């Protein structure tokens, strides 16, 4: 009924920003660099799975921000 976009952003001032980006890229995220942050998007990986994977690799909650956006598929009231 819904499609989703999991977006993880990392402040470029974070010392391990590039390492987080590499981890997310390995999991199929498309990663791009904006002026002050890295933005990793996936329409496949669910937000909680991505967060669990980052924590399992030793990253801390405050090193990144997860945004999850759902959108109705066609025809949903």
């Amino acid at each position, binding site marked *: *009924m*819904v499609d*989703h976009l999991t977006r993880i952003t990392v402040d470029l001032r974070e010392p391990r920003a590039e390492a987080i980006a590499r981890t997310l890229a390995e999991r199929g995220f498309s990663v791009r660099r904006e002026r002050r942050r890295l933005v990793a998007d996936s329409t496949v990986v669910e937000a*909680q799975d991505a*967060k669990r994977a980052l924590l399992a690799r030793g990253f801390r*909650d405050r090193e990144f*921000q997860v945004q999850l956006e759902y959108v109705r*598929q066609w*025809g949903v009231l």
Partner: protein
Amino acid sequence: MSDQPTAIPAALPWHRREDTWAIFIALGLVAAVTTAFFLGAARAVSTAALTVPTWSTVASVAAALRVNPVAPLALFAVFLAAFSAASAVIGWDVAKYAAGFGVLFVFSILVTILGSNQLLKQWQLETPLLALLVGMVLGNTVALPRWFQSALRTEFYVKIGIVLMGATLPFTIILQAGPLAVLQATLVAVSTFVAIYLAATRLFGLDPRFGATLGAGGSICGVSAAIAIGGACRAEKSHVSVAISMVILWAVAMIFALPVAARYLGLPAGPAGAWIGTSEFADAAGFAAAATIGDERAVKTFTLMKVVGRDMFVGVWALVVAFLSVTVWEKKSAAEAERVGAGEIWRRFPKFILGFLVASLAVTVVLASVDARIGTQFSKDAIGPLKTLRGWAFTWTFLSIGFTTRFRELTRFGWRPLAAFTVGVLVNVPLGYWLSTQVFASYWLAVK
């Protein structure tokens, strides 16, 4: 309908979003109608504002339609042009959409003519319910072609209708009744959310994120809230889908149940609309229920309750739930938890509400800046046609709800989410009734 995933608004530029185009189209109509009025071209506007009078014989309705034979074509041409432009920029297939809208338009003419029949009106089968029923019967029994399905965009039409609703609702009423609507909505929303959340998590052992998503769907603004809150608290996709199923099942049931109950209980239009605004679960479904009351005041009080009282605050709910999600539910202190920014409020805010407020403010300013005689004329020659155009947008909404509600697809859930959601319904409906008809009745009766 499509094999391609739906475009995610956050990944789209502002000019390709559905909300943006709903605002453009509706405010464009308001601007065009207002300009035409002051240029002395009000007749040109009324050409496209097709109305069907109540009729009892075929000869009488045929005669009424012959008075302005160009009206259906003008109405179709105006919206086809607007929707085609929107489709082209948003990225929908323009040709398929235009073909589908043509068929939807024909259905809307037919149900409007039928719904204006005196006998059917006596049976309470007016246009909104007829549109729903026709859509549901055909949508659940006939395989609809894809090009037709591409025009069934419930959310798009209801947003246009809501922005046009703003033009017919003076800003002074929003300012006067708004705080009360917010108070009533907050009382009911908080009670219902807590009831569903506690039932889901404590009674039925569901995940807290799932409970919050169900609670949001049942208390804030239906499917939109389930999506916004499900996203904010990172609920699983399958949980969001179940919450949406719950909302749709109950919303469709309430389209029929609430107006029948309001009539049976002899409720005046104002409190009836406020009750529907408090206790119906989705905007589009609520407009269908409020329109079924058959009195403009019910639609106004419904809008105040639903749009001003409930929809506006989904962003605030999202922020609170997002914070709970990364702290309480992940068992972390605020200092070590992931950061949640206040930007969440704006990100989840339904942007079409801005169009609704701008339309209301613009028309109120126009009315305040002309003398009483011109104001009366403006209400008749400009606001009148806008109400008619709003009615057509809602008829396409109701048809789209009917055509796209596939009951077979709504049965994939367990009994526990259904039971939790039902607990919320048992809180929401009586509480909404009591507040609308007893506690705040005088306010809702005063809305004209």
